[in-house]
């Protein structure tokens, strides 16, 4: 392939490439906008927040530690 032919390939690639990039990101604009509107029409369902996330094992481990501690350090009978 001569350099000129290569260049022609390159130019085609540029046109196709920039075309696709704009098409892709353009479609993305449309879809994001659409989704935002849909979401704002219905109030977004209450998804639990990150703060509630918990480690699947930790609670049990912690509970175990607490229970162990309580057993090892029996508190004096509370009077009142």
């Amino acid at each position, binding site marked *: 392939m001569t*350099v000129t032919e*290569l260049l022609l390939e390159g130019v085609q690639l540029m046109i196709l490439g920039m075309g696709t990039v704009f098409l892709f*990101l353009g479609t993305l*604009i449309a879809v994001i906008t659409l*989704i935002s509107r849909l979401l704002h029409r219905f109030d*977004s*369902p209450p998804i*639990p927040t990150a703060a509630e996330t918990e480690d699947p094992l930790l609670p049990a481990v912690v509970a175990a530690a607490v229970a162990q501690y309580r057993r090892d350090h029996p508190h004096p009978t509370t009077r009142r």
Partner: protein
Amino acid sequence: MDSQKLLQLWSTTGLANFEWGQLLMIAVGLLLLYLAIARRFEPLLLLPIGFGAILSNIPIAGIADDNGLLGYLYQIGIETGIFPLLIFMGVGALTDFGALIAMPMTLILGAAAQFGIFFTLIGALLLNFIPGFEFTLADAAAIGIIGGADGPTAIFLASRLAPDLLGAIAVAAYSYMALVPIIQPPIMRLLTTEAERKVKMSQLRHVSRLEKIIFPLTVLLLCTIFLPTSAPLIGMLTFGNLLRESGVVDRLSKAAQNEIINIVTIFLGLAVGSKLQAEKFLTLETLGILLLGMTAFAVGTAAGLLMGKVMHRLSKGKINPLIGAAGVSAVPMAARVVNKVGLESDHHNFLLMHAMGPNVAGVIGSAVAAGILLAIVGG
């Protein structure tokens, strides 16, 4: 004393084995370390790359050979594409796409700035007119991606299309990303008027958690439908982002943002350094790549700015064209440069948040461009 033993020991010294190229590359490695440490040019990557360059050019030691440490890292992480993809996952987990979701029009700026990629591709092919250069279309595409201003994308694409040029391409990409604060401002001042730079943009709207969860899935599905060849990059970026935004896997999100990205960054830098061996790096091609890389950033910036000016007009002055410059990505450096140049014209004009939109759009944009190059050139 057996003089044969002494000779054997002598024959294993660096003194007896140095070639000029290796000395020169060790100097290059030291220069990269200097830039990383004293000048703080992208130290997270340039320090390991620079050190890797030194290690790779130590005679006898063979650290970058197929069974040397850096050789192994290269085979494990770069030949397979694993390292850049894991970095991309980490970038996804570190990135808040809120600004982009609030202002989706800025995606157009992230698209325009990718022009730097294709312009540079043409530039690389033009170099073929000069005797000594023989870049194939694949080479040119890999060089062009420097204009994407995104390290992992550049390394991923170069490892697929032109592994021999990977060292020069990675060094160019990270060096020019570090030079963004120097390369961009003159172009920004040249292409915009004082009035344009003073434009204040309205506050971004609130973006709900659900929108942020749906966003990465939307991007991935579009990519699946239109451009599957960019799915490895876009896939890992959006996976990382979903880990972050889902809010139910904090452990994993933090692992992606910290442990994984840190460990892989060290290994990736060293592995890229293994491609800075003298015999592979000290070529005319490298010179061409370094030159073209600079152009790539400048043209990408200009394209982003010009699209910014178009949007400025179309929006009847609501959009500050400066934020177009952030479309090259180089996250978050380019957005900060926009903020700084904006502040020069008006001390109360904070553009950082508005520039983050095109900035992260640029990451998606260059991953899309990489997908196209893979689809057409890599076939």
